[in-house]
C-alpha cells in the first residue's frame, strides 16, 4: 500500500496541477492492455499550448504543424482561394488582349490585310479566350473555397481529437521516463513554456492570414544575390590559389596515376585477348569457385560478342586503378579511425561529405587541379569510392574484442603483431565488405569519369545519352554492370555468400 501512495505522490508531483485527474487517468491506462480511451479536454482545447506547457515536445510539434496547416487552408479559402489569383490573371490577359487588338487595328489601318495585322488579330482572339477561361476558373475556385474551408476545419478538429485522445497516454509514457530518470527531471505544468507555445501560434497564425490577404507581403524570401556571388567569388579565388600552389604536386600525382593506369591498360589490352580471357576465367575458378566461373564465362562472352571487349578492358583498368588506390589509402585510414576516436570524429563528416556531395560539384575543382583526362576521372572516382572501405575497416577494427587484444599484449605482442595477426584478420570480413562496396561505388562513377575524358564503356553510355539511343545505352550499361560484378566476386573470393 505504501508503494501505492508513493506512486500517487509521484504522479501528483509529475502533474503539478490537476494531480487527481492524472492519478485516475494513469491508473486507468495502466490497468488494461492496448488502447484505453482517455480524453484530455484541456489538451484538445488548447492543443500546442497544452503540449508545450507539459513539455511533451515530440507531440507538440506535430500538433503545431497540424494547426498551422489548418490555418493555411482556411486562410487560403477565405481570401477567395485560387479565385483571386485566377481573377487577377484574367484581368491581366484581358488588358493584354485589348492592347493587342488596338495594335492590330493600327496595323490594319496602316496596311490593310497585312500578315502582321492578321497575326495580331489572331493573338488578340487567343488572349481573349484565355482570359475567359481564367475567369471561368476563378468562378470555379470561388465555389470550391467553401470545400477547402471545410477541409481545413475538419483537419483542425481531427488533429485536436487525436491530441485529446492521446494526451494522457503520451503524458503517462513521459511520466515513466521521468521516474526512470530518478524523478529529477522537469515536471509539472510550465506556464513559461505554455506562453512560449502560445507565442509561436500568435506569431505564425497571423502571418498565414496576412499572407493570403496580401500576397506581396511574404512573397519573396529576403535574399541577397550579392552575398551569393561574393561567396562564390571567394571560393573561386580559393580553388585557384590551391590549384596554383599544389600544381607541382598535382602534376606528379597525375603522372603517377597515368603511369599506373597505363600499365594496367597495357596489360589488359596489349596482351592478346584469348590470353586475357583465359587468365580471367582461371582466376575466377581458382579464387571464387565454379559458380563465379560460370558467371564470369557469361559476362566475358557477352562483352566479346557484343563488341565491348576492348572498351570493357579500358573500363576495368580505370575501375581497377581507382579501386586499388581507394583500398590502398582506405584501409590504413580505416585502421587509424578504428584505433583513434579523435581521428574517427574528424573523418566521419569528411566521409559523409565525400559520399553525398554530387560528383559534378567536385569534378570542377578536380579538373582545375589535375586537368581533363583519365587521372582526373580516377581521382574523382577515388573520392567517391573511398568512404565505404574506410568506414567498414574502422568498424571491423573497433569491433575486435578488447579482451583478445589485451591477451595478446599480456603475452608480449608488439603493436605490429597485434595489427597484422589479431586485428586485421579478425576484421577481415568487414574489410572485404568495404572493398566490395568500394568497387561498386567506383563502378557508378564510370559514366561521370567519361564526361571528363576517361575512355571505356562510360563513353558509350554517354553517347547513348546524347543521342537518346536507349538500346545502345542499356547494352553498354549492362556491360559496366557485368564488369563490376565479376570484379567484385573474384575479389571477394570463396567466402562471399
Amino acid at each position, binding site marked *: 500500500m505504501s508503494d501505492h501512495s508513493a506512486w500517487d505522490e509521484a504522479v501528483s508531483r509529475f502533474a503539478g496541477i490537476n494531480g487527481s485527474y492524472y492519478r485516475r487517468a494513469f491508473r486507468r491506462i495502466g490497468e488494461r492492455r492496448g488502447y484505453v480511451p482517455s480524453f484530455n479536454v484541456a489538451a484538445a482545447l488548447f492543443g500546442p499550448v497544452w503540449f508545450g506547457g507539459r513539455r511533451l515536445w515530440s507531440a507538440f510539434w506535430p500538433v503545431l504543424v497540424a494547426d498551422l496547416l489548418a490555418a493555411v487552408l482556411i486562410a487560403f479559402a477565405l481570401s477567395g482561394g485560387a479565385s483571386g489569383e485566377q481573377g487577377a490573371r484574367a484581368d491581366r490577359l484581358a488588358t493584354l488582349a485589348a492592347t493587342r487588338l488596338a495594335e492590330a487595328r493600327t496595323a490594319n489601318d496602316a496596311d490593310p490585310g497585312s500578315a502582321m495585322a492578321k497575326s495580331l488579330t489572331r493573338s488578340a482572339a487567343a488572349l481573349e479566350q484565355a482570359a475567359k477561361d481564367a475567369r471561368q476558373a476563378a468562378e470555379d475556385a470561388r465555389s470550391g473555397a467553401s470545400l477547402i474551408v471545410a477541409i481545413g476545419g475538419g483537419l483542425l478538429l481531427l488533429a485536436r481529437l487525436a491530441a485529446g485522445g492521446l494526451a494522457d497516454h503520451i503524458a503517462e509514457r513521459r511520466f515513466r521516463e521521468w521516474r526512470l530518470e530518478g524523478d529529477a527531471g522537469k515536471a509539472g505544468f510550465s506556464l513559461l513554456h505554455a506562453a512560449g507555445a502560445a507565442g509561436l501560434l500568435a506569431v505564425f497564425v497571423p502571418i498565414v492570414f496576412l499572407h493570403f490577404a496580401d500576397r506581396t507581403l511574404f512573397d519573396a524570401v529576403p535574399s541577397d544575390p550579392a552575398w551569393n556571388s561574393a561567396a562564390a567569388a571567394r571560393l573561386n579565388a580559393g580553388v585557384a590559389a590551391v590549384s596554383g600552389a599544389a600544381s607541382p604536386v598535382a602534376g606528379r600525382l597525375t603522372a603517377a596515376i597515368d603511369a599506373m593506369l597505363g600499365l594496367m591498360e597495357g596489360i589488359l589490352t596489349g596482351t592478346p585477348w584469348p590470353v586475357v580471357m583465359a587468365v580471367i576465367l582461371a582466376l575466377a575458378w581458382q579464387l571464387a569457385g565454379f559458380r563465379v566461373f560460370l558467371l564470369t564465362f557469361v559476362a566475358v562472352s557477352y562483352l566479346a560478342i557484343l563488341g565491348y571487349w576492348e572498351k570493357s578492358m579500358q573500363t576495368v583498368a580505370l575501375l581497377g586503378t581507382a579501386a586499388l588506390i581507394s583500398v590502398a589509402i582506405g584501409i590504413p585510414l580505416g585502421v587509424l579511425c578504428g584505433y583513434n576516436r579523435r581521428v574517427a570524429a574528424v573523418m566521419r563528416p569528411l566521409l559523409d561529405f565525400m559520399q553525398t556531395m554530387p560528383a559534378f560539384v567536385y569534378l570542377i575543382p578536380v579538373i582545375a587541379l589535375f586537368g581533363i583526362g583519365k587521372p582526373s576521372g580516377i581521382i574523382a572516382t577515388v573520392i567517391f569510392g573511398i568512404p565505404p572501405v574506410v568506414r567498414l575497416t574502422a568498424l571491423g577494427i573497433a569491433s575486435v*574484442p578488447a*579482451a*583478445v587484444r*589485451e*591477451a*595478446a*599484449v*599480456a*603475452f*608480449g*605482442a*608488439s603493436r605490429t*603483431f597485434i595489427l597484422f*595477426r*589479431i586485428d586485421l*584478420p*579478425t576484421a*577481415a570480413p568487414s574489410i572485404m565488405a568495404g572493398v566490395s562496396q568500394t568497387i561498386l561505388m567506383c563502378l557508378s562513377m564510370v559514366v561521370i569519369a567519361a564526361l571528363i575524358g576517361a575512355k571505356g564503356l562510360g563513353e558509350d553510355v554517354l553517347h547513348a545519352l546524347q543521342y537518346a539511343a536507349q538500346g545502345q545505352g542499356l547494352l553498354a550499361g549492362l556491360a559496366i554492370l557485368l564488369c563490376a560484378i565479376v570484379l567484385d566476386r573474384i575479389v571477394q573470393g570463396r567466402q562471399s555468400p
Partner: protein
Amino acid sequence: MIELEDVWKVFGADERAILREARRDAPDEAVLKRLRAVVGVAGASLSVGKGELVCLMGLSGSGKSTLVRLVNRLLEPSAGRVRIDGGDILSLGPKALRELRSRRIGMVFQSHALVAHLSVRDNVALPLEIRGVARTKREDRADELLARVGLDGLGDRRVGALSGGMQQRVGLARALAADPDILLMDEPFSALDPLIRHDLQTQFMALSRELGKTTVFVTHDVDEAFRIADRVVLMRAGRIVQTGTAEALASRPADDYVRRFVRNARLPACDAQPSARVRAFA
C-alpha cells in the same frame, strides 16, 4: 617471486591530482567526485613466494582484477613498486617489458580472450609465435600442452566450436605454452557452470602442484579460493583487508567484512570428510 610495494592505481583525467587526494588520511569524496576519480588499487603491498599460489579475493569492484594487471603492467601503476625476482619491472623499456611478458608470465582471462580466426592449436601456440619460435616447434609444443589439459587431438578445431569449459582449457594451455614461471589468472573459472568449474579446479590444482608455478589467482568465489590457494588475500575498495591461509581467515577474520565473506565458506577438508572443527566455522 613477485613483490608489490604500496602500489596504487587510480583512473581519471588527472591521475596525479587524484592520487594526491586519495593518499590523504581522509580523502575528500567531493574532490574525488569532481575529478571523476575511480580508485582501483589503494596502497596494496603483497609478496608472492616462488611456487606459491595466492588467491586475490573480493567483491566486484574491489580492485582484484586491477591489482593482478599491475604485475605485468597491463595497467601502469600510478605509484608504488613492482618487482619480480628483485628486478624492478616499472623501469623496463617497451622491448624489455615485452620480453618479460612473453618469457616469464602467462595469463588466463575470464572471457577466454581466444583469437576467433585461429585454430585451437594456433591459439595455444600464440605466445610462442609472438616470441618468434619456428612453426613446427611451436606446434609440437602446443599439441603437448593440449594433451596435458585433456584436449587431445582437438588442435585443428575452430575455437568457436568448443564449449566454454574447453575454451578455458585452451586459455590455460596458452598461458603455459611459453613455460613461464609466473601465472596470472583473472577469474578463469567464474563464467563456467559449477560442475565444470569443479573439474577444472581439480585439474588446475594437479597441474599447478606438478609444475610449481608462482600463481596469482583472482576469484570472487570463497570456496574456490579456499580450495586451491596456499594463501588468500582479501580485498575491499582497493585495499588489502587481510592476508592468510584459509584456516586463518576462517578462524580469525580481521573484521566484519571478512567474517561475512567466510561465513558460508567450505574449508577444503569439507570436500573429503567434514570434521567437527570445520563445521564450527560454518
